[in-house]
């Protein structure tokens, strides 16, 4: 079972909390956790409005998830993460990177065409919605929004996060960003602003 894949190992060693918007997916995740006999708390909520107090999490995992949201929400979501993250806490977020699409995989012509379509969709939310309405999906069955390193670093900066480390995976298609709260964000929280 893949539901709650990261919660299972973390649930054994930490006070883990899982968040999702979909009740049906949470039910599946819960079934998986019950099978492993883990008392992990699951919360239904919207990540744009995280239902948690400030400075309480030592780690936030946002894996294979953020790039499925429209770009206009990214900064807002990362701000929420920065707020809930402890001063020395760590945020791990992975993104789909645009750069490798054009430089490495010319051989996969059809795939490339699909990636190009997704790239075009990301530029226009209306097209994206129309695309969805028409019933088209990407190879993963979901719409993915690509980004670049520069764009992510600037988004992190706006959201009060500092990127500590980047790890490229799958020939650079995915990059894991390991972030911490930036010093200005810590100061703002301390002052209660």
């Amino acid at each position, binding site marked *: 079972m*893949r*539901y*709650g*894949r*990261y*919660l*299972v*190992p*973390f*649930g*054994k*060693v*930490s*006070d*883990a*909390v*899982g*968040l*999702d918007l*979909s009740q*049906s*997916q*949470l039910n*599946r*995740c819960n079934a998986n956790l019950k099978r492993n006999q*883990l*008392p992990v708390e*699951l919360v239904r909520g919207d*990540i744009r409005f995280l239902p*948690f107090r400030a400075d*309480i*999490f*030592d*780690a*936030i*995992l*946002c*894996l*294979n*998830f953020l790039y499925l949201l429209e770009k206009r929400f990214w900064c807002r979501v990362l701000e929420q*993460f920065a707020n*809930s993250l*402890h001063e020395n*806490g*760590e945020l*791990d977020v*992975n993104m789909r990177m645009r750069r490798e699409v054009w430089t490495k995989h010319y051989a996969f012509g059809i795939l490339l065409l699909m990636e190009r379509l997704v790239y075009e969709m990301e530029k226009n939310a209306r097209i994206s919605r129309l695309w969805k309405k028409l019933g088209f999906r990407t190879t993963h069955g979901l719409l993915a929004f690509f980004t670049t390193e520069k764009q992510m670093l600037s988004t992190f900066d706006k959201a009060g996060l500092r990127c*500590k*480390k980047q*790890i490229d*995976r799958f020939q650079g298609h995915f990059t*894991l960003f*390991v972030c911490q709260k930036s010093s200005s964000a810590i100061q703002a929280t301390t002052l209660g602003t």
Partner: protein
Amino acid sequence: MIDTSKYWEELANDPIQDADAVVGGAIRRRNVKSGEWARAHRFHNYEFSLAIPRRVLDVGCGTGDT
């Protein structure tokens, strides 16, 4: 609170801990020079620099991928 003592016991007695092996999602490492133990997590080919965190939030936990 979750009782983790059993888990740590298992981890400590694991015979392959010296080989940086994945043990139930957590790997344990020893610095050869200082002899200190450090822990890191490795999931889905990602290796985190996290020590074992006390409180973790997994966002999008219900999706098949996470």
